[in-house]
């Protein structure tokens, strides 16, 4: 079975003061995550206060943009076109919800290496997605 990825209209995220740098970076094609200066741990999604140690000394970091699929599901009867939702574990160790795009959705596997791509949203900033590496 083959289910080729098709573009769809992507609901635009509404940035907030807390995550505006994340979306500014997306406009430049960069994925920002946060790292804590106190405990050195990365976290996602980005917050002002570190969710691991509660320090307020958190710093924006440009992610490498590579990772592996932690889990995924190809939704076949949710929208008119099939799409793959996933959690991708970044090289930095944190996982983020995303979509897997530009590939045969039926060939995806857990553990598969993926790399960052951006897709335009409907009137908002670009959205970070992943495609097989």
């Amino acid at each position, binding site marked *: 079975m083959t289910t080729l990825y098709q573009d*769809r209209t*992507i*609901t*635009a*995220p*509404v*940035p*907030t003061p*807390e*995550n505006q740098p994340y979306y500014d970076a997306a406009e430049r094609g960069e994925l920002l*995550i946060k790292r804590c200066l106190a405990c050195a*741990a*990365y*976290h*996602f*999604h980005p*917050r002002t206060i*570190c*969710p*691991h140690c509660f320090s307020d000394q958190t710093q924006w970091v440009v992610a490498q943009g590579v990772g592996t699929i*932690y*889990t*995924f*599901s*190809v*939704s*076949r*009867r*949710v*929208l008119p076109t099939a*799409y793959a*939702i*996933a*959690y991708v*574990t970044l090289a930095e*160790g*944190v*996982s*983020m*919800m*995303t*979509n897997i795009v530009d590939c045969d959705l039926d060939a995806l596997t*857990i553990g598969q290496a993926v790399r960052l791509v951006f897709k335009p*949203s409907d009137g908002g900033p670009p*959205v970070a*997605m992943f495609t097989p590496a």
Partner: protein
Amino acid sequence: MSLQRKACIVGIYEHPTRKAPDKTIAQLHAEVAHGALADAGLTFRDIDGYACAGDAPGLGPLAMVDYLNLRVRHMDSTDTGGSSYLIHVTHAAEAIAAGKCDIALVTLAGRPRSEGSTGTVPRNFGANAPDVPFELPYHAVTLNQYAMAAKRHMHDYGTTSEQLAWVKVAASHHAQYNPNAMLREVVTVEDVVNSPLMSDPLHRLDCCVVSDGGGAVILARPEIARALNKPVINLLGTGNSIKGLNGGHIDLSHTAARYSGPAAFEEAGITPADIQYASIYDSFTITVVMQLEDLGFCKKGEGGRFVADGNLISGVGRLPFNTDGGGLCNNHPANRGGITKIIEAVRQLRGEAHPKVQVPNCGLALAHGTGGVISSRHGSATLIMERV
């Protein structure tokens, strides 16, 4: 303070409707309250505690206490989705044990079926919800988020679609005896795995129904319970928890039941092997498999094998579950199944379940609720009850 035997469940009522386009949500709340009071043999003037969650209109207790014209000194609007009502029971028992109220009412009601709700539309809690900007663009819906948990469970433990299907098969065996159930036809494993693939690996029949309706539960001090004309049902143990995504260091191998379950068993002073009947939240088949593991009914990873071959069917297997047909076949009012989990457990303890599914001499039962999404943020609540 232990809540063991500090409060009793004295009234239950499940609304018979499954589609109520001609009724308001407040009216449905009132109708289930009316039914539970009649079941308990109490009047609305006896109520001095009230709880409801986000399915209630307006500001919850403010709207409903006024609408029902109650006079309360304990009120609770904890909202953890479908698990809210089991948490309300814990909080009501705490209030009763502390002398803060004598008789507490918990209601749930909604009309998602009449309003066209499905599990395939994103639940958008607005840009102020911190997770929304990072999930909404990916078209995360209830269905595919549970599907991701199922996919990972299959990867980690070898769970199969056929094993998941047994959960639905067991629910359907029970629902055939429930005249109010939405789906009364007995289905087979083949029926489930051959139903349309919705979001890998979940099929249409792995999903719960969308129904209107509701339910209510009334708790009271033990001495009040003993004066009423129903079997006395003691609350033995309770446990509550919330699990999130741990700042991105995620682990989808377990649910928050891993924390709420052991807490409830410790307070009750019993083990999973002692439980004769279990109401297990069944938004999807995978929900049941993971909760059974986390509650300790089997080892982690063995849930698929545990539910196979009819092990959840009353009169057939070791652990009769959801003998009303559950969310998978009976109803899921307001897209929240928590209250019906309590109600069927109490029916079993009273001996009031349908004779074809009644567990003989059922003395110890568990009710467990999960609310929200098991692959992101969810509430978990476990109640253990005994018949005196």
